[in-house]
């Protein structure tokens, strides 16, 4: 379960092969096709060439032997130069195609069928072999790109008692093998010609095979990405019964299981949230009846005996606290249900902040740095801006220490989609002079009912103030963060985008 650690090893093992399944398949198929074509061609070629040459060679030797056997008895012994010449010519006439060139030697004398023929084809080794050995010897020689068959045949006679004896007369024959060479060349050409289409076919099949493999792989990749994007109802079409189909099937099962468990989690979460909302709702009606009469209690408490007055004031105060808690709970429920709506109005933000402070009589406790009137106008929800500022300052007053500084300024932010490439943001910073927020608490400061001090079971607020603040900021599309100021004290920063005036008429 640690892809990050196994990755380098896989990199090491990986050869610098062309990447991509398609390329690899094409290369592999091509190599197999070439090797198959070449080895088949080579074997065929060798067998065919041997067969052809053997056959023509046997034919030539047989014909020569017959001719020599026919003509030799008529030759006078020992032959004169003239006899050798006519013998050579007559032997050469044994080939109906007249391609034979013949050399006859007898102890130092020699004659050729064609006058002045240098007859260089027989090698000295062949000449020696032909004169010293009884059986026919032959050799294939290639001179100037033309191959010929050279045969050396000692002429023997059979004595009366059946013994064959050499006469000293040797017949050499040279036959050009142009026809055989043509056959062989044709064979080579045929193999070559077969290799190219085979290679082409191999590449085609490779591409088809790659397509067959890659398409499901590609679909799988797309489906995985869709799942990652949160579209859990993504499923693959399962075709066939191969490994890829198995994989698709497994993918579908996994996706279905994931979808089911996510849906289950959402159901449970929604249920829990609905319960909180329902509880708040149910609490509200009796609270409405109690809240509406607390003023009567407060007014008349002075005329009661001290104990009753204290009890009555306690009930009045706690009723107000309970009402605020229920209001906050309902407010947060609306955010959870997605029912919180922005009611935007174009206002002067500095004026709004000042009104927030003055309506709560906080002007003397907070040092402000605000833009001049009219300098920072924007479309926000005035009530929600009031909640944001009041909660940030209220939190600083409760948990931090005086003096508390509040600053409001505009910030131009790069935005590719916005008009003239920038967006206007309002930045609200509230800094207290307290000890700051412990590092362990910092990430949870906007959590609901989070208590930084576990010993203290109740704070003055509902415990939802900063959570509601964060939701209000997010509803505006803004951001909120908490940090400890380098100079001491907790710094809470809310940033709100200032929307441009709407285009359509509001009326």
């Amino acid at each position: 379960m640690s892809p990050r650690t196994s990755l380098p090893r896989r990199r090491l093992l990986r050869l610098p092969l062309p990447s991509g399944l398609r390329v690899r398949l094409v290369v592999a198929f091509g190599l197999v096709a070439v090797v198959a074509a070449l080895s088949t061609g080579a074997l065929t070629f060798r067998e065919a060439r041997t067969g052809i040459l053997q056959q023509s060679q046997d034919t030539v030797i047989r014909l020569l032997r017959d001719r020599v056997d026919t003509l030799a008895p008529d030759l006078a012994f020992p032959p004169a130069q003239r006899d050798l010449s006519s013998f050579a010519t007559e032997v050469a006439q044994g080939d109906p195609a007249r391609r034979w060139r013949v050399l006859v030697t007898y102890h130092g004398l020699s004659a050729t069928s064609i006058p002045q023929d240098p007859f260089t084809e027989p090698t000295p080794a062949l000449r020696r072999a032909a004169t010293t050995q009884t059986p026919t010897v032959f050799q294939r020689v290639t001179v100037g790109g033309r191959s010929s068959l050279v045969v050396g045949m000692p002429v023997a006679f059979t004595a009366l008692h059946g013994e064959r004896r050499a006469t000293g007369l040797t017949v050499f024959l040279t036959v050009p093998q142009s026809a055989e060479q043509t056959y062989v060349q044709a064979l080579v050409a045929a193999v070559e010609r077969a290799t190219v289409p085979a290679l082409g076919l191999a590449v085609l099949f490779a591409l088809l095979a790659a397509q067959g493999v890659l398409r499901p792989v590609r679909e799988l990749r797309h489906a995985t990405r869709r799942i990652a994007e949160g579209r859990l109802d993504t499923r693959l079409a399962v075709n066939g019964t191969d490994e890829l189909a198995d994989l698709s099937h497994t993918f579908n099962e996994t996706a279905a299981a994931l979808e089911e468990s996510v849906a289950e989690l959402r159901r449970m979460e929604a249920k829990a949230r609905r319960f909180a909302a329902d509880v708040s709702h149910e609490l509200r009606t009796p609270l409405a009846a109690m809240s509406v009469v607390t003023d009567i209690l407060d007014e008349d408490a002075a005329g009661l005996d001290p104990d009753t007055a204290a009890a009555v004031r306690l009930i009045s105060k706690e009723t107000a606290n309970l009402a605020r808690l229920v209001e906050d709970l309902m407010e947060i429920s609306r955010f959870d249900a997605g029912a919180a709506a922005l009611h935007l109005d174009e206002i002067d933000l500095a004026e709004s902040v000042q009104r927030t402070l003055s309506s709560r009589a906080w002007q003397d406790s907070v040092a402000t740095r605000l833009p001049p009137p009219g300098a920072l106008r924007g479309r926000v929800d005035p009530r929600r801006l009031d909640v944001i500022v009041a909660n940030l300052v209220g939190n600083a007053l409760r948990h931090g220490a005086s003096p508390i500084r509040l600053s409001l300024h505009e910030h131009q932010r790069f935005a590719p989609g916005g008009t003239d490439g920038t967006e206007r943001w309002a930045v609200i910073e509230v800094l207290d002079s307290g000890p700051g927020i412990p590092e362990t608490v910092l990430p949870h400061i906007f959590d609901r009912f989070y208590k930084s001090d576990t010993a203290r079971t109740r704070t003055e607020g509902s415990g939802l103030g900063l959570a509601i603040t964060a939701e209000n900021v997010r509803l505006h599309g803004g951001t909120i963060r908490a940090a400890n100021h380098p100079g001491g004290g907790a710094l809470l920063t809310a940033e709100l985008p200032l929307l441009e005036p709407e285009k359509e008429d509001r009326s």
Partner: protein
Amino acid sequence: MPRVLLIEDDPAVREGARLALRRQGHEVAAAETGEEGLGRLRSFRPDVVVLDLMLPGVSGLEVCRRIRADSQVPIIMVTAMGDDVDIVVGLETGADDYVVKPVQARVLEARIRAVLRRVEAAPSPDGGVPAAETYGELRIDRAGLTVTCRGAAVPLAPSELRLLLTLSAAPGRVFSRQQLLQAVWEHSYHGDARLVDACVKRLRTKIGEPSRQPRYIQTVRGFGYRFDSPR
């Protein structure tokens, strides 16, 4: 002694509100259902109606609509916060203001006083009692608190009248929604601008403004509203 008609279905809230309002010096009639409330309207002749929107049977919105059919008595809706759609519909149906449950007695009292002041006193530009002013086909009598359009009387609810008087007191001047909320509804600065928008909408309908090109009450984009006198 202002007379308050309270229409609220929950017995505890009804009793609590009745107690609190009576302590504030109001004469209170409490009705349990919309039908009962509508029945009491004629006999009790209240100065203000406090109307719960969540009523069994005839809904609060329907009650509001039926009251407005032949009466301009101020109506304060009592809503559960978050019933945003109901608030907008209620305001457009003709409610003058709204309060959110659970409501404290002094908040309800303040809203009632504000709505009653709208009927009694209207701002006048120089303190004196001016003669009726005429803007195009519109005639506004600041002393008699009557408005006529092409000679016919226009029945205006208190907040509509007060809004028109505020805007027309300074023709050409732009009022932001928050300023109007403070001037007409006596709300805090962070009040709900939808009160203004709904009221402007109702007012325009009543004085026969074309919705596309209003002649008297102009929308100033990004700022608010302005009263103009057509030539």
